[in-house]
């Protein structure tokens, strides 16, 4: 259930995520060294355009990526196809992007300078 378009979307989103994921892990490692607290995390990220774009891009990419990934698995193992499958793909995408956007907003909006 993958044509070239979906395939490219999945691969490109993966390529985008790869450095972001590595970056995120690095930040986490660095962050925990000082002991993790909400304030600290938020202090670093809130109001930062950079982190907004960083996590915003990740959320957009992962929503596309995981939606397509799950679509394939659902098709191959559950046998759902056609319109239902497309609807399901979009639903997964929508849930992920909505929840992700909320999280990004929570983490990066608010006080503080860039």
């Amino acid at each position, binding site marked *: 259930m993958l044509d070239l378009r979906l395939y490219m979307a999945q*691969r490109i989103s*993966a*390529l985008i*995520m*790869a450095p972001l*994921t*590595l970056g995120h*892990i690095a930040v*986490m*490692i660095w962050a*925990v*060294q000082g002991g*993790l*607290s*909400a*304030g600290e*995390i*938020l202090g670093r990220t809130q109001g930062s355009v950079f982190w907004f774009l960083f996590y915003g891009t990740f*959320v957009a990419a*992962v929503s596309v990526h*995981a939606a397509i*990934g*799950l679509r394939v*698995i659902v098709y191959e193992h559950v046998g759902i196809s056609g319109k239902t499958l497309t609807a399901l793909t979009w639903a*997964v995408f929508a*849930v*992920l992007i909505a*929840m*992700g956007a*909320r*999280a990004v*907003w*929570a*983490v990066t*909006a608010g006080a503080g300078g860039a």
Partner: protein
Amino acid sequence: MRPSRAHPLWLAFVLHRVSGVALALFLPVHFWVLSYALTQPEKLDRFLSFADQPLVKIAEFGLVFLLAVHLAGGLRLMAMEWLPWSGPQKSLAAGAVGAALLLSGAFFLQVISV
């Protein structure tokens, strides 16, 4: 009837699929936790201190590990598909990335357990 398919490439595929699904299930949870930052920062704190417990640490490590495995697997796959390398080079590259990520995962675990 299930053919016996336990060869390395097939196992790599299964690992990649399982880690992909696990990540896709974890991600909304992760987003949900983060979005508490918006309205109830204290809950995030409580969660993060909860995250200090060993069991949760192991779970956290598991997720980083999954991410590392999935990332390595994904990069291996894309290298194989797109780079005009010969067979042994591909597995070597995959091995290298995998090793690097396992290392960083282990490192991460060490750091958070300080």
